[in-house]
């Protein structure tokens, strides 16, 4: 294999795939990145067997071929190259990759690409096209609510449901639930329901580029995996087996108290409360107080701990219903408010032990829907 690439392209490609590298695997080749010529481009791939990322970069191919290069050496080296033109040549017999750039001449010991897990080419013809901006936002609004506790694998995933021209993503860690709906530009031929590791989706959101308009999602039947295809990259992830809990029954259909307030003011108040509460119980106490003809309603957000002191913030709000005192994990509040894009947000709840529902307050006629449910912290046993 002999090829010439631009340092910038190579560095960028490596940064995309290197997150799938598994440096401490018992299979040494998984710590490497596959480099292969592929129809006039250079293909870079990494996999940890659960998640695989591939990207293609422009290159001048002088001689076809492939090898696997130790990821850490490769990325560190490419990151320090100062000239833009990089020449690569593989000695197949010794599996040594010679890499030259300006005055820099390097030999990297590689592992034969035969040992790299085969990357089967899927038939992507009945893939589903999803708008990249929508997808990115959906992942952003849902994936953080997934659990990181490996004891319950199903909750470390994000449920993706596709029905006709509607896509739904949902994630829950047992204490909170994030659900986001979005329309699809094209209808799916068959309904789909699958649980994708939250980490894979976060990586997908990271690697989609400005140039990408759509992403094609394919779930080859019976393969237990999902493929996301972008213009110059591809992400393959194992699906999580098992059934996702019925989240719909958790979303309350009514409320006793509804507070509408400025998202940014609410977020800021939560951040301040968290500065104090993070040392202790991580609790933010919310005092929701309806207004009257003269005064607006308010939500008082309070955080405290024995060590650091206490913080109180009063945010004006439009309150419907009765007054209420409720406490939440302040980190949960901050994380959801961070992903709400509308200027105003609604908090709906029925009692201090009932779920709190957080929704963006959409402008009239807006579609797309986001619902977040947080279980309160109960003071008292």
């Amino acid at each position, binding site marked *: 294999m002999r090829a010439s690439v631009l340092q910038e392209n190579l560095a960028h490609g490596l940064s995309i795939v290197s997150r799938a590298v598994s440096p401490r695997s018992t299979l040494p080749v998984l710590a490497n990145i596959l480099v292969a010529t592929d129809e006039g481009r250079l293909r870079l791939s990494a996999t940890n067997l659960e998640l695989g990322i591939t990207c293609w970069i422009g290159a001048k191919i002088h001689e076809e071929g492939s090898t696997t290069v130790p990821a850490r050496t490769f990325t560190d080296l490419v990151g320090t190259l100062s000239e833009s033109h990089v020449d690569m040549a593989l000695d197949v017999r010794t599996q040594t990759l010679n890499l030259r750039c300006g005055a820099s001449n390097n030999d990297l010991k590689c592992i034969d690409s035969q040992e790299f897990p085969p990357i089967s080419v899927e038939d992507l013809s009945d893939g589903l096209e999803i708008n990249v901006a929508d997808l990115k936002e959906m992942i952003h609004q849902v994936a953080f609510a997934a659990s990181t506790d490996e004891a319950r694998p199903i909750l470390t995933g994000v449920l993706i449901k596709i029905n006709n021209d509607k896509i739904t993503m949902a994630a829950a860690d047992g204490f*909170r639930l994030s659900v986001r709906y979005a329309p699809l530009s094209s209808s799916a031929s068959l309904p789909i329901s699958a649980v994708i590791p939250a980490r894979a989706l976060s990586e997908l959101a990271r690697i989609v580029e400005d140039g990408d308009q759509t992403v094609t999602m394919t779930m080859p039947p019976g393969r237990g995996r999902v493929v996301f295809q972008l213009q110059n990259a591809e992400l393959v992830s194992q699906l999580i087996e098992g059934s996702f809990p019925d989240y719909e029954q958790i979303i309350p259909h009514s409320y006793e108290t509804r507070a509408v307030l400025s998202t940014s003011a609410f977020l800021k108040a939560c951040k301040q409360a968290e500065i104090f509460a993070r040392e202790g119980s991580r*609790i933010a106490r919310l005092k929701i107080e309806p207004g009257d003809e003269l005064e607006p309603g308010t939500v008082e957000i309070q955080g405290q701990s024995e060590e650091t002191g206490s913080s109180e913030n009063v945010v004006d709000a439009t309150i419907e219903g009765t007054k209420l005192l409720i406490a939440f*994990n302040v980190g949960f509040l901050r994380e959801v408010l961070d992903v709400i894009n509308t200027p105003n947000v609604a908090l709906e709840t029925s009692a201090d*032990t009932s779920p709190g529902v957080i929704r963006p307050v959409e402008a009239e006629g807006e579609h797309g829907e986001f619902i977040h449910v947080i279980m309160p*912290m109960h*003071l*008292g046993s």
Partner: protein
Amino acid sequence: MHRKILHLDLDAFFCAVEELKDPKLQGKPFAVGGRPETRGVVASCSYVARRYGIHSAMPMARAVKLCPDLIIISSRYRDYSKISKKVMDNVHDLTPLVEQISIDEAFLDCTDLPETGKYVASQLQTIIRERIGLPCSLGVATNKLIAKIANNFGKASSKYAGPPNAITVIPPGQEASFLSPMPVEALWGVGPKTAERLAELGITTIGTMANYPEADLVRILGKHGHDLSVRSKGIDERPIITTHEVKSISNETTFTSDLLDKQSILRTLRKLSENVGKRLRRANKCGRTIKIKLRWSDFSTITRQLTLDNPTDQDLSIIHAAENLFEQSWCEGKAVRLIGVGVSGFVPPIRQLTLWDELSGHENAKDNKLQNAIDNLRDRFGDKIVQRASDLS
């Protein structure tokens, strides 16, 4: 400005409650407490019984010797606490500044009330007599120390055969002269040992102690000497403490006869644990430290404790921990006289609620529900309505 502190004491409270339930007991010598054959002690005795020389904390066996006709009634603690609560609710109607010091005793700070302390006292006495039907005595003074001693003094001076219904007022400025002729033992914190030391110095009355140089008392008795010197002058600045922080909840029992049988001991241990759990839940507290106390037949006593990862108020976790500690301390063939279980290390009972109880990884949620159901049943139908299978025998 002088404070107006009242000390309220329900006269022979347990007995008064028993008389309320069974008026035939009136005028008869009776005592509430444990049976004489089971090492019981007198918790409270009627005024008639007192004439035989019976007093509370006396072994019941001795009481029966003093008065063979003594009627013994076993304690109905639940009834007493219920009525005590009613009394205290009435007290709270007068002022929020109430410090309850036991089931039948409380201090009140009435400084902010327009009426005189004496008037408030007689008002309270009337309320408790008319609304609840119980006699009580009150001491009125400028501080807690004098109010309590005044009350004790007033009750002891009663010439009636029945409940004293006393109200004793010590006007401001007369605290020291009121204490002066009293024996030093009347002061809180003077036990037999201290009294002996003081007697060696020629101090037998509070008045002599008040005149004794404080520095000398401190030299002889240490810091305690300072406290005593101040108190003997009738000075007591302690405020009424309305909230009382509980640091631990425990329960112990002495076996009627020393026990060798492990299963019986474990059964008691479980019962005590359940009792502690119930009180924790009532008090809305969760603790992390579980402690057991064992007294062997030779009176040597050990305590063993462990700390849980998560604070608990659940019977089952307390039982498991207590059994665990017991297994580590138990010696085959060694008879147990007393056993106790306690929980401390309280943290605020804050719980993150979960979306799906069964999925959350906190199986506790189910246990909590079960526990609540059991508590409800027991509250309505008594403790025996639900029992552990292991305790059925």
